[in-house]
């Protein structure tokens, strides 16, 4: 009986966290540009062999 109440609280809390995460991600602009992020993650490595003037920040 009380176990069910506990479970209910737990499940609703988790669900609320996900809702908050969703709202945060929309507000943060994560859905604004769907083209560049998938490309961007492919070029993270800075080239090694070239003479380095300024390394990445």
């Amino acid at each position, binding site marked *: 009986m009380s176990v069910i109440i506990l479970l209910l609280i737990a499940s609703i809390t988790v669900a609320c966290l996900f809702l908050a995460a969703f709202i945060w991600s929309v507000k943060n602009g994560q859905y604004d540009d769907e083209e560049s992020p998938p490309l961007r993650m492919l*070029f993270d490595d800075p080239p090694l062999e070239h003479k*380095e003037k300024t390394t990445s920040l």
Partner: protein
Amino acid sequence: MSNKEKAIAVQCYHCGEDCVDKPVHVHEKDFCCEGCRMVYEILNQNGLCDYYAISKNPGINQRIKIRENKFAFLDDENIQQSLTVFKDDKQTHISFYLPQMHCSSCLWLLENLHRLNENVISSKVNFTRKEADIIFNHRNVSMREVAELLTAIGYEPYISLNDAKNRKPKVSKSKIYKLGVAGFCFGNIMLMSFPEYLGIDAKEQSLVNIFRYLNVLLSLPVFFYSSSELYMSAWKSLKHGFLSIDAPIVLAVVVTFGRSLYEVLSGTGSGYFDSMAGIVFFMLIGRVLQDKTYEQLSFERDYTSYFPIAVTRVKDEKEETAPLQDIKLNDTLLIHNQELIPADGILTKGKAVVDYSFVTGESLPVEKEMGEIIYAGGKQIGSNIEMLVVKEVAQSYLTKLWNREEFSRNSIDSERSFVHLLSKYFTWIVLFLSLSSATYWYFNDVSRMWVAATSVLIIACPCALLLSNTFTNGNILRILGRRHLYLRNAQTIEDIAGVDYIVFDKTGTLTTGRYNELAYSGMPLSKDVKRKIAALASQSTHPMSKAIAAWTNENNRAKVAAYEEHTGKGVEGIVDGEFITLGSKSYVTGVHAERDIETATYLSIDGNVLGKFTFRNHYRNHVPLMIKRLRKKYELAVLSGDNAGEKDYLQELLGFNANILFHQKPEDKLEAIKHLQQTGKRVMMVGDGLNDAGALRQADVGIAVAENSNNFTPASDAILEADQLPYLYKFIQLCKDNKKVVMAAFTVSILYNIVGNYYAVQGLLSPMYAAILMPCSSISILLITFGFSNFSAWRMRLK
């Protein structure tokens, strides 16, 4: 010879275009021009050659040099301020629109700007909008230097007057939040309802109550927050005295919520919270899909996004940069090559060759002499000119054209849709059903009366109709968007489907407007004669002469003596002892032409007329084929601001009944469309220039054709990328299929309604049946709409 052939086949390492002239050979790589080589050197010095590894030949051709002081206006405090997004004592944030951006290499290079200049703190690209947000240290680098750095690597920022006036409004995300909340509540209410549906032990009364009250709690945000979207649109149309499709849905939501609340509070049942949350959730999905707007595109552009932000003003013999708003009467402006003339004025210095193709539809540039009036909107080609402003920017012919009253059209789009017509009947039928079942039970079993009446309203809410409409529209919009036809809104789909008359503009729409094909007719010309013509023609900067010089393909130029140029008429000179004249018909032949029927340059040598060069417009690829297909189903017409040189060809292409008119002023085009509409035609106008702006708005559907949809286009219902124009007939067909899909989905939902109402009128509808029936009908409608609309797109090879 073989060496030359080899040279032609060489591709530029930077931009990938064929090296026409001698390639520049550096670092064992070939470049088509100095510009491309310089970009390569800059990147090479800074170790950014990965640029060439990510995509093949990612560069942008640099053959056309950009004027040195072009960005001098960025030193102006006021302009800087208007462009800055954010500024503190160390850094400035600015957003540049870079139309050249096109591939992953571009993205990579632009985000590595800090490696080219250490004072650039960071740069972040928004690929969809083709914008780069740049943060730089303004103590060590100026905004102008940043713009010049971008230009140096081939990404010249496009800065227009519009940028200075207003920052782009933030896109409203409230609908997404509402959708998120509705989805969250819907899922959880379903979960909380399971114990009840699966038969919870009646002894656990306290537990049952916990679940029920939790449901009430979860339904509150749906009812008060998420549904506000529906309330607002229903209220808006009610205020206009119009029963829209949202009204019965709001009724259903309110009735469901009220009855469920009553059941829970009185302890008689669990209510229909899950159904209510479901309706709202699916409804919002449909809306978000359908309202998917093309944020980066604006369908309501005005002249300010076409005009430059600043111009060069000459004051006391000195050049200075002035913001366009500050230009007053009697200012002297300096217009450089390829720059726009921002105000009406009198030419005071230099020779103007003005390209008005975007403003008037004339395909060839117009020559102007000192003292003549030049109108705003044209583009100067060739040398620098100076002009005296006689009318302020806001009063020029072009801006007046834009601000004309009849061009502003107000209509409530949503009320024209056939769906609203259908929903009206639907609403009345539902209300009638609900009332009659209530009356029946009132006489037979009063206890069941309320149950039956509300059940009918709950189950028969026309959400299925609305769902099928919004989902199909949303999907069609997406399919068309992927093919670069961007519609202003979902109503445009229906408008396109209803069209029966299509009017085209010529210059820039059917033709490319930029490249003209030169054709020679007359006596054959020997190589020697050609060489002489080339020598004469290359003396002049007139585009006609330039084209003729290029056509001869002779580089070995002879000397020209006694060269004379008569503006608006032609050129003459003695080449190797022969007197050659090139020019208009009346100038060369002496026969006076009434009105220029075609664009032709006549040639005579020693007084003998040998022949003429005519310009033929270059039609976009596959456009003739598209016209032939459209011809079978639609009446076609061409309204052009150009001369009638192409009349015969167009007449043959469009058929002999087609209406083809030339020398059309913007007002003429507008009137022509109006006239057609008065005869009961539903007109689609396809155009590109400012001279089509009025016609585009007047027409039932106005489609603006653009080489690059992010660039300037006149206000319209839709924007189509020029290379997709040949598929116009397919797009129209797809829009027609849209209606069929909606009807099919609607029929299915009617079947669900019949089943549901069978139980509802008897007062037997249990919450569980409702909870099963609702999502089932919604999901099957989803499948039908997506399936059918994708199928019809696939059948037409549009996917």
